[in-house]
């Protein structure tokens, strides 16, 4: 689905690169979480995939044009902006030239937000706002869904609802999901793959392999290397 070859990037265009010679292959139908410390360029990688930024070197090939994007809420959002949920979705519908007017109700209904259609976006809670942005992203029936920190500023109950909804889309509709995550628990629970960003590099793991690495590291920190542990 996404093939990243020798990707390097810096905001100045010169070295040192903050993303340096990355090679990744993200398969169709996977759920990949991008994790890493603050400033490890997780969101930058996503913006490069979305072509919001231009790579200094290398290339990114995406096997579809049908991309849904849920931006980081705090990045996008001005809570004083006078716009209703219906207006946000209607505007998106016009831009994507979608003829079927029922799509707004259908998208909102799928995520349980139909009752909020005529509400101002600024009057909704963090979780409700995030659901609206997900509904917007789904209107174009995307094959690839990219989310930037979907749980930021969202209460636990809404977080669980959002993650299970995304997981359902991934499994039932075979939508490839890429999610920038600061929520490690959610990343391990929902993803099939993990991309770990560290020191300008990115490593792709199968989630079960990554769990093993975490467990090994945790035991090492306690001085209990797995090889030295006896099974009871």
């Amino acid at each position, binding site marked *: 689905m996404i093939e990243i070859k020798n990707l390097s990037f810096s905001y100045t265009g010169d070295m040192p690169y903050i993303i340096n010679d990355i090679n990744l292959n993200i398969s169709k139908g996977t759920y990949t979480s991008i994790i890493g410390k603050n400033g490890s360029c997780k969101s930058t990688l996503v913006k490069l995939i979305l072509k919001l930024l231009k790579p200094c070197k290398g290339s990114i090939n995406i096997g579809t044009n049908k991309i849904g*994007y849920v931006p980081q809420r705090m990045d*996008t959002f001005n809570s004083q*902006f*006078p*716009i209703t949920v219906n207006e946000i979705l209607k505007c998106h519908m016009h*831009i*994507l030239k979608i003829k079927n007017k029922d799509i707004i109700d259908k998208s909102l209904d799928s995520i349980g937000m139909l009752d909020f259609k005529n509400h101002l976006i600024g009057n909704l809670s963090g979780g409700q706002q995030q659901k609206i942005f997900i509904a917007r992203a789904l209107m174009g029936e995307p094959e690839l869904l990219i989310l930037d920190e979907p749980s930021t500023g969202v209460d636990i109950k809404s977080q669980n609802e959002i993650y299970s909804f995304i997981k359902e889309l991934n499994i039932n509709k075979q939508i490839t999901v890429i999610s920038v995550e600061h929520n490690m628990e959610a990343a391990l629970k929902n993803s099939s793959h993990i991309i770990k960003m560290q020191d300008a590099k990115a490593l792709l793991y199968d989630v079960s392999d990554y769990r093993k690495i975490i467990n090994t590291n945790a035991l090492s920190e306690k001085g209990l290397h797995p090889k030295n542990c006896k099974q009871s």
Partner: protein
Amino acid sequence: MFEYTFIQNALIAAIFISILCPSVGTFLVLKRYSMMGDTLSHASFAGVALGLVINRNPIICAFIFTSVCALLIEYLRNYYKKFSEIILVIVMTLSVGIAITLISTGKTKANVNSYLFGSILTVSKVDLYTMLALSIISVILICILFNKLLYITFDESGAEVAGINVNSVNYIFALLVGATISLSIRIMGILVISSMIAMPVATALQLNKGFKFTFFSSIVFGFIDIIVGLLISFYIDCAPGGTIAITSVLVLLSLLIFKKIKYA
């Protein structure tokens, strides 16, 4: 008073302005770029000064110069992404520098004051036709680009991902702002145009409704501001720019007081 041709011309011009200024103003204010109106009004001053020195239509000269400055602002935005206010200072400095230099040479062939403070006496048929042409083009462009402008204003990166050519739309919008300001200077005056761009929107925002409601109510508030301001200026015989600006503040204050009383 309506039997006077100059009043008829002024009222027709006022209708154009009351539609255009709040229309572009809504997007500018919500982009947190309302000071762009102020900067471009100074740019239009340089254009007017140039027109008066070379003896050409000052509104057309203002339109050309303001448009160039608007495009320059948009171009420089890529260089000062995190300090966009400084771009406005750069363009304002250039414009005021040119305007003062030209006017202080004493070669301007008409009274600059009417452009600074606005005038209902000086709107000629030629001005009216120029304003009509610019207004029609601007309104058509706003209608065509409405959804794209709204998307970009609300969520610029989302708009880009959705396939909107954000740069092109931003450049066209910059030209629209330039056109709006240059055709408003006759009535409003250079010094207070920006109030007509921001004040009706500031009032409409207090209604706490959706975008379309805010957009159209800002046009209604703009119409009230400008018509009441023009009538007052006629009766007390002063420049309309000042009375329109004062009216716009009074309308906003009235709404704030009304809200305070209603929700007390």
